[in-house]
């Protein structure tokens, strides 16, 4: 089963969380990213996610693998939506199980932070005023070492 998945369908968070269960796990931390109705002071009606799927898949897998190397965890998974989403929809889900809560929290945080930084997925927000726009939020140059 892939540790990272791009999904065109609704995310089943409960089923995903059950998949993290293990006899060695005493903690489970999950993160849910939801579509909210505003950004930067503008009213948002819905959004579209576009992804470069093959690279999103491999980079997402790499991030989960990094989390497994950095933290003492048992299982980890991440699912990110693609396509059109409405306000309140679950856009991204991260779940980690571990023997203890510290590693579970830290790995969960690591995965969502790195996904937002590195995985080639883009958000197009549709605003109440009829405008829309792709978000390219990083106004600083990408790290020189990666160029």
């Amino acid at each position: 089963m892939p540790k990272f998945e791009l999904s065109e369908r609704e995310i089943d968070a409960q089923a995903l969380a059950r998949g993290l269960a293990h006899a060695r796990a005493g903690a489970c931390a999950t993160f849910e990213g939801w579509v909210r109705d505003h950004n930067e002071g503008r009213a948002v009606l819905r959004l579209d996610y576009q992804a470069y799927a093959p690279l999103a898949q491999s980079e997402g897998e790499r991030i989960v693998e990094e989390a497994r190397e950095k933290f003492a965890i048992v299982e980890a998974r991440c699912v990110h939506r693609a396509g059109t989403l409405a306000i309140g929809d679950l856009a991204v889900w991260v779940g980690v199980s571990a023997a203890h809560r510290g590693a579970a929290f830290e790995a969960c945080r690591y995965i969502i932070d790195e996904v937002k930084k590195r995985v080639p997925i883009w958000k197009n927000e549709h605003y109440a005023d009829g405008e829309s726009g792709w978000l390219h939020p990083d106004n600083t140059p990408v790290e020189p070492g990666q160029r």
Partner: protein
Amino acid sequence: MNYRVLYFASLRDRAGMDAEQINSLATDARGLYHELRARHGFTLGEERLRVAINGAFAPWGQTLHEGDEVVFIPPVSGG
């Protein structure tokens, strides 16, 4: 040489297409982006993009080969 270029997000909107086949004299992604930037009027500078060649992140100066798939990756906004 012939390359296949895929576009995403604002670059896709600006180019008005998802992908194109390009015949170019450029031998690396940097040269190819300069050419495409002039053709399509892209506003994102090279310093804000990353490059993927055949599905993997690559340096701007990596030599391109016939048939390579090249993608210029604008700053991402998932999550």
